[in-house]
């Protein structure tokens, strides 16, 4: 019961903060709304008993990435006039309708019945697979389960990510450095 109430609080929080990210004209407000959105998302992870994912969400996204975002936005120091005046065009209406329509269609047709079948056979095998990959007594989302998934099952993408970061750092420095 308490979990259901908490879930709705977090879900509404995610949706509300997510909408604020898009709707706010002030970029700082948008970025801070994104922090709030991540925070509520972390709450839903906690409800799934995935503490590790939740805290990583908070540490990495809300803590580090978003603060850097906010930093950059602040240093750019956009004024209202630079942001331009909001205009209501027919294209925005069409975009809104088509996005909502497409998302609705996928959610309705795809997810609605797909998840019945996934829950019927897919998820069952999935969970047994996960159980096979994880240690006995290490439930889904726990530190051990995540560590096994990352370091054994997905060791190639994990190591490859370090190459990606190296390339990103070198590339950024090379492009941004005044004198080469």
């Amino acid at each position, binding site marked *: 019961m308490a979990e259901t109430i908490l879930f709705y609080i977090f879900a509404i929080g995610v949706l509300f903060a997510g909408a604020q990210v898009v709707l706010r004209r002030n970029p700082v407000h948008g970025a801070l709304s994104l922090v709030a959105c991540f925070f509520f998302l972390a709450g839903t992870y906690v409800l799934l008993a995935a503490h590790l994912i939740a805290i990583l969400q908070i540490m990495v996204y809300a803590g580090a990435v978003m603060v850097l975002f906010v930093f950059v936005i602040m240093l750019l120091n956009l004024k209202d006039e630079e942001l331009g005046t909001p205009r209501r065009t027919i294209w925005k209406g069409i975009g809104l309708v088509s996005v909502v329509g497409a998302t609705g*269609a996928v959610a309705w047709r795809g997810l609605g019945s*797909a998840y019945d079948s996934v829950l019927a056979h897919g998820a069952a095998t999935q969970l047994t697979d996960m159980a096979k990959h994880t240690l006995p007594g290490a439930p889904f989302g726990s530190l051990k389960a995540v560590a096994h998934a990352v370091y054994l*099952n997905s060791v190639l993408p994990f190591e490859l990510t370090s190459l990606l970061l190296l*390339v990103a750092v070198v590339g950024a420095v090379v492009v941004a450095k005044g004198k080469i």
Partner: protein
Amino acid sequence: MNFNPNDLVGILPAVILTLGGCALMTTEVFLRKDGPDRRYQPFLAAVFGLIALYVSLSQLGDPSATLFAGAAVADGIGRSISAVVSGTLVLSVLLAAGYLETLSASRGEFYALALFSAAGMCLLSQATDLIVVFIALEVMSLAVYSLTAWLRKGTKPAEAAFKYFVLGSFASAIFLYGAALAFGAAGSTRIADLALAVRNANAGSSMLVYAAGALLTVGFAFKVAAFPFHMWVPDVYDGAPAPVTGFMAAGVKAAAFATLARILIGGFGDVGASMGPHGWQSLIVLLAGATMLVGNVLAVPQRSVKRMLAYSSIAHAGYLLVSIAAMAGSEPRQDAVFGLVFYLASYAATVIGAFGIVALIERKLAPTGASDDLTTWGGLAQKHPLLAAAMSLFMLSLAGVPPTAGFMGKLGIFRAAIEAGLVPLAIFGVLTSAAGLYYYLRVVVYIYMVPSTKPEPVVGGRMLTAGVALAACAVLVIWMGVQPGAFATLTQSSLAGFGK
């Protein structure tokens, strides 16, 4: 399930290229502060590229093996593409050496990024997990974005890099959305599990699978510059340094096409499924037709050779898409796979050569900020007859005139298309490539028949390494055109373990 060090042997080309990049960046630290001597760098990069080329060629015949618990695979097409990419890298760094030196923009990071990007391409062609595909795609792309921005002075490179970065990130996001939907349908990111989900798709989940397939295809259509997503190509190819453009045109295309084929055949290729290969085949046929048409038509009015080559690369993406469409089936049609690999190899040799000669012209022009208009090519034949001959050869190969590599490539692809029953598409392809003759031959006409308007030499700077690379390209183009059987191991072993 434990990490098996032997799996590293399967991705050895990528490992070698990565180590090469790290080695180059490490040596950069030890250079003298005043007047550092950087002449060794392109050769070091080329040596690592050659080792990777040798390794991928020597592994060609080995049996295919699943690596890292199914995250990647060492199979024929992966090794063939690794070989093509390594060769592309070697030729490109040799062409870049004199170019960067002339423009005094030589730095170890250039070669390091090129090596990293080639490593990403090799891994991309070996990836059998959508997460690995995504990360390898980003390794490749981020490195190429930075290489595009290498000469930041002036607005053109900045515009090119920014456009490439923004649109490329957009494409990556679309790909990622498709991957997320595929995960929703399959419960796993492995392409093999995706195939299972496609087979078992019912009325409800097939929508998810369709959306996933479409989004994944769109993501790659951006990278290979297929028709509705080709807008970035001319500006990016034009703004990037010419050796980078050649590397980009050859390497990125090779890796992206191999992966697209792998995802479509391996993931969505099940004939028994309600949305099997016929679902995506018609999509690819449409893309191929439109891309061939648009690329060839838009290339005609171009005055700048570099820009013309950019549009021509769109047209070539269209021809390559024909081979993907011809592959459709649960087992990939083998002549289409051969055609794809051969075409990628021949296109790589040709386009690197063409952009290499553009680079020689651009060295001279870049400080003045002028574009390489057709008139600047006038009189090349009198001053540099060898370069003129090579350029004509590359143009003929791009146009698909026998006896060049381009002809054999087109022949293979269109024959595969006809055997797959795509006769109208093949005819359309032949017609559009005939239209392409016009703008390719126009370059040859300017080189040989229009006298130079300026007294100074057309090209500038040191030429030795570039000359070696161009000679290698020219030899490859003729060799592949005259004796395509010599490359049979490269193409035919590419089928091993593919699409299983």
